[in-house]
């Protein structure tokens, strides 16, 4: 069939078109801040995004190139009355070229991303600061423990919460990540932070955000039937005093020893 190449071409155009369109879609797959937008709200997130875009451009160029070659070849050498098939044994030079080129690209990407990876994941890169909290994944919630007024974790004045992460914008925050039963994965999509929580290990994780607002924390590991329930609220406070005020309120609630007016009944 003479017109098969057109079908291949249409599929390729559709694929490229949907890539080009996707940033303008409300469900853009790189979640960002409360106001939307294309980039992450954290400095680490933006470095990951730029790596992502770089890889997307490289693979996009290769994809478009190979599709053009494919369509051209199928069109040019299509079956026609009277045309005789030719057999040939391939080209060693071509084989070597199309092995070396992708290998070189891979090596380039591997070397190029190394610094980013080291800055995000190496223990030695962890900021030397007071931890914001100790977060333990358990089936099926994130148990959070913030150092209380004494600034020391695991003392009687700690603030203990579930599924409620708070930190201050524009400031590095460090947490200690643990798991008490199975492997969970601490995932802040808007910040591009994802780290497995492994039973028996205490893993430092650090992040920042430059936009105040509400985000989400999820578990990115299929950790059991209640996996989808491991969702947390993330609040990025505009200033340290905002954060301290929230902390004060939460501690007051934790230390509550009187009956307050009963909350809103019904709806």
């Amino acid at each position, binding site marked *: 069939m003479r017109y098969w190449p057109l079908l291949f071409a249409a599929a390729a155009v559709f694929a490229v078109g949907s890539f080009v369109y996707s940033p303008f879609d409300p469900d853009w797959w790189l979640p960002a801040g409360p106001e939307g937008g294309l980039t992450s709200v954290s400095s680490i997130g933006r470095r990951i995004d730029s790596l992502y875009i770089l890889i997307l451009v490289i693979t996009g160029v290769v994809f478009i190139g190979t599709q053009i070659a494919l369509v051209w070849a199928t069109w040019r050498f299509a079956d026609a009355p009277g045309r005789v098939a030719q057999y040939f044994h391939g080209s060693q030079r071509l084989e070597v070229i199309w092995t070396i080129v992708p290998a070189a690209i891979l090596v380039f990407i591997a070397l190029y991303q190394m610094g980013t990876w080291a800055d995000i994941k190496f223990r030695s890169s962890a900021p030397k600061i007071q931890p914001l909290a100790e977060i333990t994944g358990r089936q099926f919630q994130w148990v959070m423990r913030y150092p209380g007024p004494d600034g020391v974790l695991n003392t009687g004045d700690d603030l203990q919460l579930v599924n409620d992460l708070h930190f201050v914008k524009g400031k590095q925050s460090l947490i200690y990540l643990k798991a008490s039963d199975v492997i969970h994965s601490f995932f802040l999509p808007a910040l591009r932070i994802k780290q497995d929580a492994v039973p028996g290990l205490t893993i430092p994780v650090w992040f920042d955000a430059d936009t105040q607002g509400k985000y989400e924390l999820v578990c990115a590991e299929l950790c059991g039937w209640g996996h989808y329930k491991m969702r947390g609220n993330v609040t990025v406070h505009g200033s340290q005093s905002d954060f301290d005020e929230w902390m004060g309120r939460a501690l007051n609630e934790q*230390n509550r020893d009187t009956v307050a007016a009963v909350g809103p009944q019904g709806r």
Partner: protein
Amino acid sequence: MTSRFRLVVVVGSLTLAGCGDSFHAGPIGYTENAQLGIDLKDKPKLQAAVTRAMANLYGPTPQQIKVPAGSGLPDGGVHLTNLIQQGEGDRTEVRPIALPRVDEASGQYMASKSTGKLLGEPQEGGYALYRKHCLHCHGVDGAGNGPTASFLFPRPRDYRKGLFKFTSTPTGAKPTREDLRKTLKYGLHGTSMPAFEALMSNRQTEQVIDYLLFLSMRGETELGLIAEAGVADEETADEAISDTVAVEIAQSVFAKWKAADSQVVTPETPRPPSTPESIARGRELFLGLNKTGNKVECAGCHGAQGRGNGPSFIDEATFTQVVFRGDPSGMPTRVEALTDKQKELWKASVDEWGDPLRPANLTRGVYKGGRRPLDLYWRLAKGINGAKMPAHLGLIKPDQIWDLVNFVLALPYDPTLLKGATLPGTPAAVPAAAPAHAASPTTSPAPAEDPRVAVRR
């Protein structure tokens, strides 16, 4: 028909089959309380009368929910399903509920920016939300027997008794809506009940509470009807379980729920500061050493070191053997294999639902009913409904309850508090030096014993 065409038809219809509703199980239905068959074994007419009364009161299936008048549920319970019936007779129309969207922050209705019309928000309704988030543990009728229930310890709550463990109201009374809201939003630490705050909006939370109240009231009414039928005569079944009787029983259940809000227990005295003296007094009470004649002896169940291994409960090794070694359904067999003395202890160590209990290990700082001093006050003052933790208010004074609260809150962070302590009447485990050290809990712990050192930076 060519064979290739047939193949396309077969493969195509198989593929499309996955897209339809065809693979869904049939409609979900309530099951009858097993007690119905036990208490009314040879009385088929009375059984039928109870079943009929239940269907009349609450609807025959969850899809045909009826909420009897006077239930106290908001809006008469119309939000329990996501459907609402409008109009009468031939013009009756059943359609999905859509409520105006409310901005959670300001509490204002939200309107469309272009047309100015109020934005509608489709409602899932309590039943749909319950089915999504709760049913797999708590079961269709709230019997705590959903498909995942057997894998959990402790087992999920069976709502049908209308009994809830962690409340702010007196022993045996119903929980307030706020109690249930707290459990739903923040979960029960130390159990499999997760926190739902980040999963549901405030409005959805209220809808789930509505539905669980509905199930609870329904279950308790059913138990009431079975009890009523138990003393009735088979020959006059229809008169004994008449509509009037059924409504009366339901109304008495509703009345108990409505009373809850006015029953919240307020601590009679303010909490004293957590001083070493207050903690030491709490320690004495805990160990039963207090000489004022007020015997509480928490250590009998919670153990002299607070590890949840006191002599009043079956020992931990046997407990683990029975509960966790093997298929949960084999538990009765494993209980049978115990010695007579152990069996006796075992029988005393189950809750109102027949599920095995374990006293809390207080050194871990995990409190199922909440960790606020107020929550601990409630646990100590009024106990835990349906479990072995008794109410202590009356046995000891409110001040002493606060001393115990201060002690319990301090214990996880100061392991020296109960070091070497023994139960009264038993020989000291460690002679001389250790009890003396334990008797002065205020002395600062040696650095090597301090668990905080490891994380201090």
